[in-house]
C-alpha cells in the first residue's frame, strides 16, 4: 500500500505516465486507487506521433497494470524517506 499512500499525497500535481506500450501522457493527478489505477485531468499526449487520436482527451483513466513509469515532479519526492518506507513495508513492519 506504500505507493498508493505516496500517490495519494501527489494528487493535484503534474505527472507524466508512461505506459508499457510507450505512450506517455502528461496531466494533473486527479486520483489513484489501491491498484494504482490513475485518473488524470488536463491530459495531453507527450508523443503525438504514435497515438494522434488521443490529443483531444481532457480526462482519462489509466489501468494500473499498464503503467510502466510515473514521472514525478522533482520536488515531489523525498527519496530517502521513500527508500526507508519501502524497506520497512517489505519487511512487514
Amino acid at each position, binding site marked *: 500500500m506504500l505507493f498508493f499512500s505516496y500517490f495519494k499525497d501527489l494528487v493535484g500535481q503534474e505527472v507524466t505516465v508512461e505506459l508499457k506500450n510507450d505512450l506517455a501522457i502528461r496531466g494533473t493527478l486527479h486520483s489513484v486507487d489501491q491498484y494504482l489505477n490513475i485518473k488524470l485531468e488536463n491530459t495531453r499526449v507527450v508523443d503525438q506521433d504514435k497515438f494522434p*487520436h488521443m490529443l*483531444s482527451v481532457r480526462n482519462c483513466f489509466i489501468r494500473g497494470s*499498464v503503467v510502466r513509469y510515473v514521472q514525478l515532479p522533482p520536488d515531489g519526492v523525498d527519496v530517502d524517506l521513500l527508500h526507508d518506507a519501502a*524497506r520497512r513495508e517489505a519487511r*512487514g513492519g
Partner: protein
Amino acid sequence: MVVGGLREFALRRSGDGSPALDESNGEELMHVQPSVAVALGSRSVESPGTLYITSRKLIWLSDVDVAKGYAVDFLSISLHAVSRDPQTYSSPCIYTQIEVVEDDEDDTESAGVLELSKIREMRLVPSDATQLDTLFDVFCECAELNPEPVEEEEEESGHNWVFSADQMVVGGGGEEDAEWQISQSPTSVIGHSNGGDESIAQPMLELRINDQRFDDAEEMVHESETKDH
C-alpha cells in the same frame, strides 16, 4: 479464462436479445446504453447498436444484425477517456485503448479479414452525448472491479526481496542492536519455535555456540567466568 483483447461476441438470450453472461462466475450487468455506435481502430463507425457493460467486460451488439457483436474484457482495456474535440473525431465519444499482445507486426487486416485481436483503439459513440460522463464513470467502476489477478504467493511475508547487505549476513555479526533478524527466505531457517506453535514469530537463523548473542549479558563484569557450553 483467456483474455486476449477484442473479440467477436454473439451469444444472445433468446428473450430480449441481451447478451448471455457468465453468471455462474459472478458476472453481472452494470449498465445498458442503447443507440451506441462503435468504431474499431481507424474503421468507420458501425451502427445502430447497444452497449452492454458488465462487471467483467464490455459488449456491443448490433441492433440489426444478430450475428454481429464485439466484446472486450476490462482486463484488456488499458485506458479510457471522454473525447470531445471535433477536430480529432467528428462525434463526442468514449475513447478506449485495448492492450494487444503483439506477436508480429501484422496489420489489423490481413488477407482482407479483420483481425479483431489486433485492434488497439475503439470508440463508442452514443447518440446521446450527455451520457458520456455516466459511461466514463461506469467504465471506471468496472475497471476497478477487474484488477490484475493475484498469483498464488504469500500476501505479506513471502516476498524474498533483498534490500541491503546486512540481510545477506547470516547471524548478523556486528550489528548494534540485539534484535533478532528475521530471514525473508524460509529455506534458510533452521530451528524450532517454542512449543510447536508456528505463529510465534521469530525462528532462529542459525544456532552457533560461539555467536555473540549467547554471550553473557553486559552487566557481567568478568567475561572469563565459566559459560554454559
